[in-house]
């Protein structure tokens, strides 16, 4: 009981300090409502002085690390080829590892082709690329419920040139987290 009344006093003290500083620093009118909410929160969270709140240092989901291995999300294919190349097995493995430990995460695997040929046949060929990635990930333990292999065919080229460099860039499957 004593603790409680003491903590109430502390809380009141804090709140008046907050209010005073708030007034002193000429907060614009519309922000006043926010300032008044703070002391209420302080009262409830400090109700038990024996409580220990666990704090984690800032750690990002490895998926959000722009320099991490999971930042690589594209698998490139050779001309007229629908098998995952040796060079891109690590991309597939890294995302498989992440997905098997984060079962709630789901991905779309979007297959793409270069611009040559018909829209619909290219759509089916892009699907074969997406399927190749899906099958590899499935073998590494990723559940089918976490993956959907789809195709964008030649409809959404990343490189818009009409040369071999652009075509190579567009023969690709992308892993897209949902």
């Amino acid at each position: 009981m004593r603790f409680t009344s003491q903590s109430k006093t502390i809380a009141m003290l804090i709140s008046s300090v907050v209010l005073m500083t708030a007034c002193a620093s000429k907060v614009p009118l519309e922000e006043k409502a926010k300032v008044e909410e703070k002391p209420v929160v302080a009262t409830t969270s400090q109700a038990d002085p024996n409580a220990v709140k666990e704090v984690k240092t800032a750690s990002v989901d490895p998926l959000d690390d722009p320099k991490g291995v999971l930042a690589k999300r594209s698998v490139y294919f050779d001309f007229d080829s629908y098998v995952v190349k040796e060079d891109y097995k690590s991309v597939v493995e890294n995302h498989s590892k992440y997905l098997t430990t984060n079962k709630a995460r789901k991905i779309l695997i979007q297959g793409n082709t270069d611009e040559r040929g018909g829209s619909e046949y290219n759509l089916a060929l892009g699907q074969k690329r997406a399927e190749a990635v899906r099958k590899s990930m499935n073998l590494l333990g990723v559940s089918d419920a976490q993956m959907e292999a789809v195709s964008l065919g030649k409809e959404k080229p990343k490189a818009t040139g009409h040369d071999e460099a652009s075509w190579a860039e567009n023969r690709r499957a992308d892993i897209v987290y949902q």
Partner: protein
Amino acid sequence: MRSLLKKLALSIALAGIGGAFVIAPAQAQLRVEVSGVGSFQIPIAIAGFANESLTPQQVTTIIKDDLVRSGYFRLIDTGAVITESSPVNFDEWKQKGAEALVVGSVQQLADDRYDVRYKLFDTVKSQTLSGFSVATPPMNTRQTAHKIADDIYEKLTGVKGMFSTRIAYVTKGGSEYRLEIADADGDGIKVALRSNEPIISPAWSADGTKVAYVSFEAKKPVVWVQNLMTGERRVVANYKGSNSAPAWSPDGTRLALALSRDGLTQIYTVNADGTGLRRLMNSSGIDTEPQFSADGQFIYFLSDRGGGPQIYRIGVNGGEAKRVTFNGNYNITPRISPDGNTLAYISRRDNKFQLYVLDLPTGQEQRLSDTTKDESPSFSPNGRYIMYATESGRRGSLAVVSVDGKVRQKLTVQAGDIREPTWGPFMK
């Protein structure tokens, strides 16, 4: 007027040599260039219709454009205005070289509509061939003119006219994709769907009221059917994987489409409301681009079960698939003519993607284009022409060629790409 003249001048310059000429209707956003002539040309005189300046567009100008564009008519200069009730001196027209004469009139009706009357004469036989009158609301002037052109075409060539039919295609401008509907001459453009994601493979229902298409708005291909009049749209196929290549059965009750729900892309049929999914067949390769034959008995499709993509045919309820194309190692996008005798498709030979036709009874194959990036052929409903997508100056454009290869038209937009054309049916 000045911009129209400028447009004309530019078009003529682009069309180059070879007797090419240009039709650029004042309001058109699509520019049409025509070259070549039909295997025969009927000399026809089209007189001015009495009072035709009353309607928003001049009826005889539209009729003349339609007939000339078809390649089967040669205009005989008249300069005269003749109504359907005036007496005709047949000898005079015969002397001028005209085998047929068109006359008519426009009258304002009490309810803001126009009474458009027309008559067609055979000057050689000195007799009336046809004629009718249509009460036309001002905004339907073009339609009425196209109907008159259809009637002239049919009476003189024996084949139903297609000037009052429509086309659907996709344009891309900036980041916007639009599914557009236009008259067969590229005029009267209406937007059916706008999206920030690609739209492909539009397909008309046989009654011309609905269009099925593939939209990527959900980050993956999904098949939709849209009612053009109400704008109501519904998903017909959104299974796991890719959903694409819709084609209507001739009776409008079912759609054939390609789904990858079981891994490999395979052909299924489904009711027009999305129920009753049935797998047509199982193959070890990609099966896609199904197309019903006009009698509804067969489905033509692309398959790479034998290695490269070739065109096959199967019964609408399954059975044994028969290979149809044997020349070249890349034949895609089968389209079957309304009479079932001609197969149009795109073939890759020497790294050129070009339009070909195969006469099915004789097995005779003919290349119909000189361009190198052709796609998406479709027959006009009278079977005489094929429209397809090609590239002109790095931009997508549309082309029309007569099935005998003699008449050619090119349709381009002022800015942006135009692709995925498909010719609509005859309307009731």
